[in-house]
């Protein structure tokens, strides 16, 4: 399929394509990109356009701001607030804990067992999410979970209490489980980029450990740390599966509100509210990822 698009007709000694005028050669090169563009067009661009246009489409098919207005209702605003809180808190927690773990590993040997195990473990755990993670926590802190039973039997305390696991606090705990490893993966390269020469130069010039970190280490790591935190934020904000598996009552956060909107057939036109919600999500994530990209560029320049 793609091979015929890739092979220019005439034989190999390249007398073929070079004989063609330049503009024609340029167009024939573009042909090679067509399959990819078509595919991405259908399965990525079209859904995006559906979402964006649908966000402004009414039940009768005519443009309206009604869906966007629906976004300003208290329930939806609260959902956004909760989503942002959840993402923000887990991003910061994940960033701090992850940075700490990354730091302890970066001071060890580069190809030693410790570094490799932590890297692999982080790779797997950052990947570990969704339904399986939710169930792991149910097995730990659910009504019959290991810790629940343990605390009940040994200390007589009921730790599941109000069912906090199935609401925002629970989501916060569970999300940090994959946020921390993600931070380790994303931040480790930046820590690696801190050259020992800078520390030695600072020492030679008379700086103490604290002075080195204050004037050199922390300023150099700050953009990467901030950027990684933003990445964690976007990651948590976009997450759906874990919450879907854990929360069965209500839709406290935006992704779950989207689920509600597109699966509920009770109220007509709800589907388009779902699209408006999706659009809102796109805006938030796009802004955050833009910030991340800018900070990454600075990091790459200094620590790359």
């Amino acid at each position: 399929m793609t091979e015929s698009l890739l092979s220019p007709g005439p034989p190999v000694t390249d007398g073929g394509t070079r004989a063609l005028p330049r503009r024609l050669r340029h167009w024939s090169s573009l042909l090679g990109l067509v399959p990819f563009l078509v595919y991405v067009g259908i399965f990525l661009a079209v859904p995006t356009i559906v979402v964006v246009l649908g966000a402004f489409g009414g039940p009768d098919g005519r443009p309206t701001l009604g869906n966007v207005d629906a976004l300003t209702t208290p329930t939806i605003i609260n959902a956004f607030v909760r989503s942002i809180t959840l993402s923000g808190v887990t991003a910061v927690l994940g960033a701090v804990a992850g940075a700490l773990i990354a730091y302890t590993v970066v001071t060890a040997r580069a190809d030693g067992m410790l570094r490799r195990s932590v890297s692999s473990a982080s790779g797997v755990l950052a990947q570990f999410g969704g339904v399986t993670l939710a169930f792991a926590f149910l097995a730990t802190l659910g009504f019959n979970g290991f810790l629940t039973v343990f605390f009940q039997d040994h200390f007589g305390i009921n730790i599941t209490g109000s069912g906090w696991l199935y609401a925002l606090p629970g989501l916060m705990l569970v999300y940090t489980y994959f946020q921390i490893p993600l931070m380790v993966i994303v931040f480790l390269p930046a820590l690696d980029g801190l050259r020992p020469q800078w520390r030695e130069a600072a020492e030679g010039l008379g700086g103490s450990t604290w002075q080195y970190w204050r004037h050199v280490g922390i300023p150099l790591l700050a953009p990467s740390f901030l950027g990684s935190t933003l990445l964690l934020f976007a990651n948590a904000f976009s997450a759906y599966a874990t919450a879907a598996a854990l929360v069965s009552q209500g839709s406290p956060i935006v992704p779950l509100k989207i689920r509600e909107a597109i699966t509920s057939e009770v109220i007509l036109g709800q589907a388009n509210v779902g699209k408006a919600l999706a659009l809102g999500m796109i805006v938030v994530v796009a802004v955050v990822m833009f910030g991340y990209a800018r900070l990454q560029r600075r990091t790459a320049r200094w620590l790359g």
Partner: protein
Amino acid sequence: MTDAHPAPTPAERPGHGVAVRLAGLRRTYGTVHALDGLDLDIAPGELVALLGPSGCGKTTALRLLAGLEETDGGRVYVDGKDVTDVPANRRDMGMVFQAYSLFPHMTTKENVEFGLRLRRVDGAARSERASEMLELVGLSAQANRYPHQMSGGQQQRVALARALAIRPQVLLLDEPLSALDAKVRVQLRDEIRRIQLEVGTTTLFVTHDQEEALGIADRVGVMRAGNLEQIAPPDVVYTHPATPFVADFVGLSNRLPGHVSDAAVEVLGHRLPLVDPSTGSGPVTALVRPESVGVHPSDTGSARVVSASFLGSMGRVSVALPDGTLVLAQVPSSAVMALTPSTAVELSLAAVPVVVEH
């Protein structure tokens, strides 16, 4: 370790030069002896170049002097005081690294001011001193640039300015030119020497490039396997190498069979004086420099030209002796063109003292 030439005292040099002494320095990594009882004296204001192949311990010696690593034995004295137990950030030494010297998030000026800032020098004095240093290295126009906006050579000059800004007792340069282009390397080398002479700071310069070491130093210390093979002024190291290793490492050498008798060696039909007249008689290998070998086209010559290269300022010719041995000779560039391959030639050897090994 031969040191027949003690450190000269450049008495007329101004500045902050202090004497440095490394006494019996030892450093081991596992089973490897990076330094094996190194003794070195550097006179105030002197520039000593430590030269040697990788792993000889030259960088280790520098880092021990800087305090960036701990000794496993021996002492370090700066200006007569024992600083072996003083941490690196209190030794008052300026250091320039091979790469990544500058802090990437600071401008040139901020980089140079950094040491002063740590010493709580106030803004105006700091700025003035930094400007002075940037002027010294010729980069005043780049004061507000960032490292990534400058070339490698410029970055190293800023690193030098930064090191000198704090008026260090000792200046340490760890292969500062190795990462630069050939032409920049030569220019910067002369710059560094000029600045060092002007400021007068005692300097230790580590390099694996013998041309660099010879070109820049007051004395050159050739190191091997954790110790000094020879330390002497550049011309002495070149013309009177103390050991075959030094003769081999510094400059090129031809290895030719010879025979020692009566404090001279017979090589290729010529009698040459010895660097070490006390060498015992018998068959030896003589190390003869290419510039001591003369090549003369001659119909009766028994040697033949194998190849000749025109190198601009001079030429290099490879000649085969009847028994097959290849001899490298240096000839004036004007003579190269006549020495086409297979030309019959005669070889002559200048009466310069040579090193021999048994």
